């Protein structure tokens, strides 16, 4: 079935609220899923994979492990980027504003692909960012220049399998300084695949024009989560609507 962006946003916000997310969290989480879906990164599939986990855990956020000049280490407590991603990117941006560049590593977190929207949002405030994570035999790098509307997404082949559940965020005034930070820590060969901004724009335009395709089973799962924030209707409660 197809749904509109606004409709999906409203449903996701209430569904995340039903999972116990707070106001800022459910707004951010909904934006992350929708951006990924509309720009061709399968945000809804990611969400579908994350829901069982989110449904069976407390809403855990990132905890500060260590904090030095220009860098910090956070523990994601096996939680999702939907809950920890905003904190991580915001801390990197604050460090970058204070010191010229910042680096934050979030360990022990899931659904890292969904971080892209947070990078795009932060870039609008004038910070250039790069995110990097590893999964299996691949490394993933997302870069966005300050004030840019769309990022670049690249996938790399790693020499060895990685079970690393970390997400690294590099922030700075511009992409040159961010890239210098990045290469000082990570060494990669040429990417094996890349998603250019044109492809993301095409996907977005198509979703806007035709609606967003969503699996009906997932839509019903969201409906069930939305139901958690609704209150039973009684004769008395109808009076509270003006009867």
């Amino acid at each position, binding site marked *: *079935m*197809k*749904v*509109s*962006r*606004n*409709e999906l946003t409203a449903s996701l916000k209430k569904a995340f609220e039903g999972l116990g997310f*707070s*106001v*800022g*969290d459910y*707004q*951010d989480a909904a934006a992350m899923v929708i951006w990924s879906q509309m720009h061709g990164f399968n945000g809804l599939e990611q969400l579908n994979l994350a829901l069982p986990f989110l449904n069976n855990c407390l809403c855990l*956020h*990132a*905890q*500060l492990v260590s*904090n030095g000049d220009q860098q910090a280490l*956070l523990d994601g407590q096996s939680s999702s980027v939907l*809950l920890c991603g*905003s*904190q991580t990117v*915001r*801390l990197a*941006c*604050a*460090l970058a*504003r*204070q010191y010229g560049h910042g680096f934050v590593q979030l360990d022990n977190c899931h659904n890292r692909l969904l971080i892209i929207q947070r990078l795009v*949002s932060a870039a*609008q*405030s004038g910070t250039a960012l790069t995110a990097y994570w590893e999964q299996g035999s691949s490394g993933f790098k997302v870069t966005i220049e300050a004030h840019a509307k769309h990022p670049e997404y690249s996938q790399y082949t790693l020499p060895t399998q990685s079970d690393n559940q970390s997400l690294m965020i590099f922030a700075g005034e511009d992409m040159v300084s961010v890239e210098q930070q990045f290469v000082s820590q990570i060494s990669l060969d040429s990417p094996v695949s890349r998603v250019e901004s044109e492809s993301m724009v095409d996907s977005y335009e198509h979703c*806007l*024009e*035709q*609606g967003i395709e969503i699996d009906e089973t997932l839509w019903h799962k969201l409906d069930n989560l939305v*139901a*958690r*924030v*609704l*209150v*039973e*209707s*009684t004769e*008395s*409660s*109808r009076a*509270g*609507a*003006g*009867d």
Partner: protein
Amino acid sequence: MQLDRLGSFHQSRLSFMRTLVRRMVKEKWQINSTVFDLDSEGYGTAVYEVKAKFGTYSYVLFSHYLDPENRNDRVIANQWDLTMALCEGTVDAEQLEFLRTNVPKQEAGRVDSRVFVLSRGNRSGRTFEYVVDELANGRQPDVDVIAEVGYLYRTTAAYGSGKLGMADWEKVRTKHRDFARPFAAEMFTCFMLRHFSLQHADYIAAQRAPETAVKLDDDIRRYFGIGNSTGLGMAPFLINHPLLINQWIEQRETALARAKMAGTDGIDSQMLERFKIATDRVIQHLGEIVTGDEKQNISNGMVRQELQELSQWLLEEGDNIVSSCYNWSELAQYAEQRWRVETQEVINTLLIELYPDLVDELEELMAVDEDQHLVPQMSLQELKLVIEDKYDWALAIDFAQPNAQGSFWYRSEEKMEPRLGQTHVDMGMEKQMPLAIGRMVRECYDEVCAYIAEFPQQDVAHFILQQPNLSGAISRIQTMAQSHYGDIRENLVHSDVLPIHLLRCKLSFFGVSKFDPRSRLWVRNTMFQGAPLISDFDKPFMDDWQFPIKPVLSKSIDPSR
């Protein structure tokens, strides 16, 4: 903005109905029915083709039999007299069948991104049959009877912005310039309902008595609007879209400031005369409003009395006002000192009305990017100062008082209808909607102060690592601190909160008139009453249809018309 002032707003030149009508007339939109397939009782299908400046659209309407017992204006209703959809392009037979299956179901159906707006309407029990009977018997309806209601049908919802699978607002805004202003498509749908309602009455009368029936006189047709019932569903919108509300009010305030500035060096006699005529029109308009709400009646009466005082002063002192270089700011100041907020807002609206050349361009600035951004590098000391400076009204509320948290807002399982509950009486407080902005700010402020005591040099980014659940509050505070009008400075969970003020504020920007409160939770009103007819689009246009008054029939009515 204070809630009581928001609850005193009237439509202005910047209201969405006004700007829509100006656009349709200026651009001479062509609107014709391509299908008018109704049976003798008036049930069936109508399709109108709309040729606007930048595109072609279809307005598709289904007329159904509805047992009067099932006629209900509430969101929870599931049957209506009329259901309709506004679609992009022309509608082919296949799409028409798809719409016929889904549009009558409203929220229980699904449409697609070719549809902009889904809406429905119910007949007025007081006027529809009366008007049809009169027309069938060869008579025009009595204007006094019409004045009591003002419409033949009332709309009970107009859904747009992507609900139920429809096109997203961004698609409408970027690809369909004819409707690229907030709520333009929704307002157009209501305008077309008005057009159909008049055709419908004519049609049924002619079916019933082809030998004797007459058509509605044009002056009477213009005096019919579309009724509207608005309940609590509109209230959360104002809280959840603070940047948009800020933008609307800012443009309105800009318009008012421009009007006042235009008269800084004095007011000429022609302008003064126009102002007096407009004032007298409002006096008549308020006198013609029929409402069962005693409070509204008293208010209307007091505003009339103050406006009569103003009118008398204009009459007696007109020459002196012109020669002494008296200006609009002085009048506004006088009104603020002596008259009720409702009267002040009438005067503000009339001043805006006087200067279309200075005001009308602002209609293009009513949309805004609504993203709220958290500023993580802001020091907590600065955030604390921002709250103390911009949210002093919230910090002044004592939430420990028994009534200060006497209400809560929640969504019912019945169509997710927003409702207002009584704390410790109604169920669902643990699921309340986060609309208590004042309380949210208070809680945030207390946590910020406590954290500062321990870490005085820390920034917002580190604070939200400790207090992640406050990121939404901080994001809103930091964003709204940049604006003047977006936050409603009132405790919206107080036992005595008056949601009707919120409804009226939004409805005034829509452009409605004749507010008829049915309780503190919902209000009836009239849309497009006095507006031009489609057949007027190619005639000279004065754009002076605000504050509708009973028509003075300019000619003896020929029953054969």
